[in-house]
């Protein structure tokens, strides 16, 4: 029962990765000549779904129809042949080539063995005129604004004959005026009969431009709605889920002693954008402060600033009685700031090294791992064995390489080696991401137990159950700013969702 009026029809798409279900029974119907938005938090499964539609990954089950015809994409080339094009969030352009050269790259028009740039230029001008896209074909890409680079990417896709365009968070990198231009271009394309699939979590924009909106949560498509009948708050609630987990009714262990005090911290990206803006909060002994937010809103920068990896341009970070803003990472570590890094493979582990060396990482300057300038192998092995035992890391022993362990056991090792060092402040970034339920419960118990002993924890997570279940206070970060300070016991999904997507900030302002 193929519907010819649908440009794309996905039915029952399921895709699992080891230990993670990225997409489960996903349904998506995109009408020809419409702008269809897909919204959802990070990790909701949007990217995986688009990769499947673009032939970068194959679904485990389910069917894909394009213009009513069942397709089976093995590579993006198959998708391109069916007229599907994708504009990635991170541009894939050669800076030292011109717009024209970038656009024809890979599908160059030829005359005999020669490149036919004139034909390419003509085609680009035709496309530009048809959709109202302004582009100078001879400008060097490195001289272009971000908006013009994006137009180049879109043009590249149109040049290859795409009539269905997937745009992955196209507005994330644009300034407001460029967003307006982009939307005008998109309208132009739709008028010509093209179909746009638009991924975003900026709800206002989505409501402004989309003809239809599909909401994803936890790998599933939870609703497809008409923008006419919904407002941003309702949409945010759909994204976050209608029911929030109820926090554990544990007695508060929060004391009056401030362990970490962050005041007016501001940080800039290398190209001068403000990535942390006047961030201020305190963490007390025995308190877990949770940071909620859609990923990419300054969480990584905040961690780096607290760990001394990123310079802060203004503001102070006080740890106990010292201003540590100028301290090295090593000094902060030795003073008792522990970290469970957000990405254990990129920031937490030496995969090709034995567990005892992994346990040593971050504590390599102190006993029992070090003895003056020497590595204390016995001390390190003994300590690692203790971690393995106490935190129930499933391994044959401390001499096994970290790569041999499952993700959950790797994470238990990381959490264990940080906790056993008895830090005063622990920065826990996604402490249970991508691990099984059993390991997750064990890590939560450890965090609660340490909090009772007086540990001050900054918990950064994308898992609302974790945030609400553990935190004494819940801060929301949006665009590098703390936009809300909420009580996890009384917070509503609507509130949380609207602050996380930037709606609440405007409403309260």
């Amino acid at each position, binding site marked *: 029962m193929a519907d010819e009026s649908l440009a794309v029809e996905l039915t029952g798409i399921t895709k699992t990765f080891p230990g993670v279900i990225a997409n489960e029974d996903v349904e998506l119907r995109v009408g020809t000549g419409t702008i269809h938005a897909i919204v959802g938090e990070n990790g909701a499964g949007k990217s995986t779904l688009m990769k499947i539609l673009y032939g970068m990954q194959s679904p485990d089950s389910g069917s894909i129809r394009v213009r009513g015809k069942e397709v089976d994409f093995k590579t993006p080339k198959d998708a391109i042949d069916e007229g599907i094009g994708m504009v990635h969030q991170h541009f894939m352009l050669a800076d030292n080539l011109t717009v024209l050269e970038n656009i024809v790259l890979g599908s160059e028009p030829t005359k005999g063995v020669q490149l036919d740039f004139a034909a390419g230029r003509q085609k680009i001008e035709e496309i530009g005129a048809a959709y109202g896209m302004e582009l100078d074909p001879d400008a060097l890409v490195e001289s272009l604004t971000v908006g013009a680079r994006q137009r180049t990417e879109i043009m590249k896709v149109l040049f290859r004959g795409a009539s269905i365009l997937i745009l992955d968070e196209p507005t994330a990198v644009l300034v407001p005026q460029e967003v307006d231009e982009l939307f005008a271009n998109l309208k132009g394309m739709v008028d010509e009969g093209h179909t746009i699939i638009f991924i975003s979590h900026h709800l206002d924009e989505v409501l402004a431009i989309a003809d239809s909106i599909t909401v994803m949560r936890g790998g599933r498509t939870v609703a497809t709605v008409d923008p006419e009948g919904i407002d941003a708050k309702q949409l945010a609630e759909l994204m976050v889920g209608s029911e929030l987990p109820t926090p554990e009714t544990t007695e508060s262990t929060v004391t009056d002693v401030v362990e970490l005090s962050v005041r007016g911290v501001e940080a800039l990206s290398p190209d001068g954008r403000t990535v942390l803006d006047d961030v201020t909060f305190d963490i007390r002994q025995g308190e877990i402060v949770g940071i909620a937010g859609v990923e990419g809103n300054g969480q990584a920068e905040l961690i780096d600033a607290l760990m001394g990896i990123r310079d802060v341009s203004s503001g102070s970070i006080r740890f106990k009685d010292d201003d540590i803003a100028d301290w090295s*990472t090593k000094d902060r570590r030795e003073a008792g700031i522990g970290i469970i890094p957000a990405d254990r493979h990129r920031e*937490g582990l*030496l*995969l*090709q090294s034995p567990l005892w060396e992994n346990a040593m990482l971050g504590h390599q300057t102190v006993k029992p791992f070090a003895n003056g300038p020497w*590595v204390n192998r016995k001390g390190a092995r003994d300590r690692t064995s203790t971690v393995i035992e106490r935190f129930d890391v499933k*391994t*044959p022993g401390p001499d096994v390489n970290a790569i041999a362990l*499952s993700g959950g056991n790797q994470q238990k090792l990381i959490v264990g080696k940080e906790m056993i060092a008895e830090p005063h402040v622990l920065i826990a970034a996604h402490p249970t991401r991508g691990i099984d339920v059993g390991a997750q419960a064990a890590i939560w118990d450890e965090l609660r137990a340490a909090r009772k002993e007086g540990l001050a924890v900054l918990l950064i997570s994308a898992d609302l159950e974790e945030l609400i279940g553990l935190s004494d206070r819940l801060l929301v970060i949006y665009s590098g700013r703390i936009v809300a300070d909420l009580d996890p016991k009384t917070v509503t999904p609507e509130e949380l969702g609207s602050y996380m997507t930037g709606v609440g900030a405007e409403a309260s302002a």
Partner: protein
Amino acid sequence: MSVKKMLLSLLAPTAAIVFALIVAAIALWAVGRNPLDAFSSMWSFGTTTTSIASMVNRAIPLYIAAVAVAIGFQMGLFNIGVEGQYLLGALFAGWVGGNLGLWAPLHVALVILVAVLIGALWSGIAGFLKVTRGVHEVISTIMLNFIAFSLIAYLLLNWFRDDPTSLNLQTKTFPASAQLPGLNWMFTMFGFSEPRGISMHGFLFVAIAIGIFYYILVKRTRFGFELRASGMNPGAARMAGVAPKRMVVVTMLISGGVAGMVGLATMFGNLHAYTQDFPRGLGFTGIAVALLGRNSAVGMALGALLFGFMERSALILDLEDTPKEVVQIMQGVVVLAVVVAYEVVNRMIEKREIKAAAEATRSLEAGEEVAA
């Protein structure tokens, strides 16, 4: 398990050498020589005591160069500038050594110190440029090589030259106090015939000491751990409090310091001066030896000896009217083959470990159920 692991790790170099022999055999056959015949004359020529002494003498500088390169490799730094660092180090060492007369041990120590400092200074420039200006060390060390070559020519001609009237362009010859005795007595001590026309370099002991220093530094010190961590996972090392910039500079300094000593075996052993025809190219071959020995202290020693053996035994091919370049083909192939073979074997080891860990997890869980 550990015996099996050792056998597995021996598998890679063995397979690589066999493969290199096959390729060399094809090359020999292509130039019209019976490969078995050629190999057997290489072997019988290469195993005379004279050849052994020559092999060791060739291996010493290659080993030191390999260690210098390997120190950088441990943290993912490519010091391509060992060549310039050792030549410049040797020039200054030769100049200082020739112009001093001291108590012998002090004299030798001072010459070594000068070589180390100059080598470190030269590599330090590359380290400094990397952390302050972001210049990639491959580019800067290659360029510094060329600068070193010209600087050496200039200094030797205008400042360090011993006797302007002599046709020999060299620094002043070392006095006896800076000439390390040879080691040919080691052969006679064990009842072998004494090498003829060659003296095994006394610097061998320094090379061994450098190897031990390298092993201890990398495997047993905090610095070595931070070095390896930075190489394996820079992100994790940074999170763990390893300052990346400081690490780059210190590593380059140590690498260059070791590199400065590459030319000293020859200088103490037979040349006793920096001469115009001072051996070149050792720094580049050292990179190949470091790859061959997989940055392991023992592995690189074996690699250096293998290269020394191949170079020495190749000489017989020339006398038999066979191009000795066949051996260069072998050297190249053996390095490539080792890199490939190690990767294959490492994956085998990794799979075994993952399996073992999975089994342990299962048996642990089963044990718990029984206990519960």
